[in-house]
């Protein structure tokens, strides 16, 4: 009888022990609780989305430098996955009031989805707020005004990265119209190299044909973005349609690398650096990857904007910097500390750290930060377009309307599963969901 009782008691004991263990979450056990302090000590948290190892160099350095100046502030660095998974986490944290005191996030339409007026602190009265560029300001404000984010990192451009050495070897000139680009690609293909690198294994990269064409669209129709937000423009009509048609054509022309279907972003970097792949519609942030993995090749890479059908409409499309935000749940001492940290990030010292610890991929968004003298040639190419006044922010920064399906739809166009027109129509349908979710008028 006793043995039976012991046998019966076992699960109950295991249960009790387990419940005890479950009571303390692992987060607490391994430290990182943010008790408010004693003796004026303030602890705040900084949240950074990352997509891999070793991407928090800038933030770590900044925290170290900041705490030297403000020894009473302790900053705990937290990370979360990036991409669409991370977007969801960010929204949930804000909704449940668990957002760390400072968090890094995109600007533009992704910011709008966070409902800044309801959830974020307005920072327009800060010193640095007067020094941001106009195009950046447009991406961190709402219809009611206010400045909700402080820039961190540089802008980047979306266009065509190309291997200058191969272009020189083959005697090619930088194309200014789509037909010139196509002709160049034919010559590259004839020479046995890959004319256009595509990496469908990382589906977000397929979007560049359409996204980087946006500057050209705006050149032809400067009101396009505003009208698009009111549902009065569609990608299925010109001028928006052209980017989709061009993507379809490049696929049909057979310009892609053989393994495009399964290649991933890192493979693309390798191809461009080695010259096996000659052009790549991509963001200039790829330069950071090349500088890290193939530093010798950095000076071989240049950039030109995705050409429009007519040379006069060709523009460089710009992606704005990310920003630091402060949620409304930060109050009192923590709010002060958070504001100080954000201001520090944009101070001279903060800018220096940014230049040292990260690779610049475009001009900065605040006048206090300047590009280093030894910036990569790609940056000089981008700067030229900006100086000529021919750089336009990408769609997601001028309109809150962006659909979640674009990576998948553009992959289907690039793989020849759908035509360009079908892709554009599908995407127009896709954004409807987002627009309605945001409660925009006219949808």
């Amino acid at each position, binding site marked *: 009888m006793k043995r039976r009782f012991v046998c019966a008691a076992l699960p109950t004991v295991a249960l009790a022990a387990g419940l005890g263990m479950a009571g303390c979450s692992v987060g607490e056990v391994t430290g990182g609780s943010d008790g408010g302090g004693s003796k004026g000590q303030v602890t705040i948290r900084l949240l950074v989305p990352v997509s891999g190892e070793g991407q928090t160099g800038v933030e770590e350095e900044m925290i170290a430098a900041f705490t030297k100046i403000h020894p009473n502030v302790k900053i705990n660095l937290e990370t979360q996955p990036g991409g*669409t*998974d991370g*977007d*969801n986490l960010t*929204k*949930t944290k804000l*909704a449940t009031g668990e957002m760390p005191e400072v968090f890094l996030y995109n600007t533009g339409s992704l910011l709008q*989805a966070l*409902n800044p007026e*309801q959830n974020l602190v307005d920072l327009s009265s800060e010193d640095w707020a007067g020094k941001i560029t106009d195009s950046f300001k447009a991406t961190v404000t709402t219809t009611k005004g206010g400045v909700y984010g402080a820039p961190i990192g540089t802008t980047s451009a979306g266009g065509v990265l190309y291997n200058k050495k191969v272009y020189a070897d083959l005697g090619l000139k930088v194309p200014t119209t789509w037909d010139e680009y196509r002709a160049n690609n034919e010559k590259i293909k004839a020479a046995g190299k890959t004319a256009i690198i595509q990496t*469908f294994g990382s*589906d977000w990269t397929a979007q560049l044909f359409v996204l980087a064409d946006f500057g050209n669209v705006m050149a032809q129709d400067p009101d396009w973005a505003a009208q698009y937000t009111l549902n009065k423009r569609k990608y299925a009509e010109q001028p928006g349609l052209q980017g989709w048609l061009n993507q379809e054509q490049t696929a049909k022309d057979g310009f892609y690398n*053989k*393994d495009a*279907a*399964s290649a991933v972003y890192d493979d693309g970097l390798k191809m461009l650096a080695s010259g096996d792949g000659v052009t790549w519609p991509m963001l200039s942030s790829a330069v950071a990857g090349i500088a890290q993995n193939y530093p010798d090749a950095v000076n071989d890479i240049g950039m030109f904007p995705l050409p429009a059908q007519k040379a006069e409409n060709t523009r460089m499309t710009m992606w704005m910097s990310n920003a630091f935000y402060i949620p409304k749940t930060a109050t009192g001492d923590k709010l002060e500390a958070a504001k100080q940290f954000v201001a520090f990030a944009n101070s001279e010292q903060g800018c220096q750290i940014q230049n040292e610890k990260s690779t610049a991929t475009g001009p900065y968004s605040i006048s206090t930060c300047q590009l280093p003298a030894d910036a990569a040639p790609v940056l000089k190419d981008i700067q030229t377009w900006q100086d000529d006044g021919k750089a336009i922010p990408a769609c997601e920064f001028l309109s809150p309307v962006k659909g*979640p*399906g674009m990576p*998948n*739809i553009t*992959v*289907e166009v690039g*793989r020849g*599963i*759908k035509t360009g027109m079908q892709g554009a129509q*599908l995407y127009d*349908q*896709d954004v*409807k*969901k*987002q627009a*309605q*979710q945001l*409660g925009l008028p006219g949808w």
Partner: protein
Amino acid sequence: MSSAPTVVAGAPVVNRRRRRWSRDRAYPTWFYLPAALLFVVLFAVPTFASFYFSLTRWTLFNTEFIGLDNFVMFFQEPNLVKGFTNTFIYGFLTSASKVVIGLLLGLLLTGRVVGRGFLRAVIFFPVLVSTIGVGLTFKVLMDPFHGLINGSLAVLGITGPGWLTDPKYALLSVAAVDVWKGLGIATLIYIAGIVSIPQEYFEAARVDGASWWQNFWHITLPLVRPATTTVILLSLIGGLRSFDLIWAMTNGGPGFTSDVIASVIYKQYQAGFYGLSTAGNVVLFVVVALIIIPLNYFFLRREVDR
């Protein structure tokens, strides 16, 4: 021991009631309480709530009643419809494969075969392994240019296709891995079913001079029906709701070509379209229920006939 109360007028009433009362005292209803509590709060309430929320536009911050618009949107978008058809293809294909191959393996592993114990162990092990682990492993093996499968085919002079990158094959490749992983359970259930067939039937058949095929068709197959029923139901439920493997291997890609309802639901959840995602859940629930419940009833009736 039957406990159906027999209605007999007169005397035994008092005794019967007292007996039932004391019997029921030994099996108190509050034993159900923890299960019932969990079930109602975390299963019943959300399921019923989902019917309401599927009719709204939901941002977790606020809700807006929009009637059947979510469902209209769901069935209008070609990608979502494709997810629907993919779900059916995936569910029925994996289920049919598990039934047929499971039965064949069950026959093999209950017959006279060398290394039977080893074979049984080997076939069952994938069932226990992490689905994500299996998905990632096969994703690597199926890589069109660097993977082992195409590498081995190349040795034989065949150029293997893009198993997961060709829109024609992506869903089927994932289904194949699903069968690989789930075959063990199907085989196990069949072995149990076959082993429980009384030997007398086979003896009688041998006396009558029956061939192997006649044995199979007239004895084994009908008598193994409970096992077949179980395998069909379990594999169909699992197949229609499958998410993990598809997500790990293709993310629904390339493009949308291997999306199933479960992955569509997740993508909408990721994008923050909570109302639409919940509508998708309702659709999935209705689909699974509409298929499984009649099937279950059909099998139950067949069994009663026996």
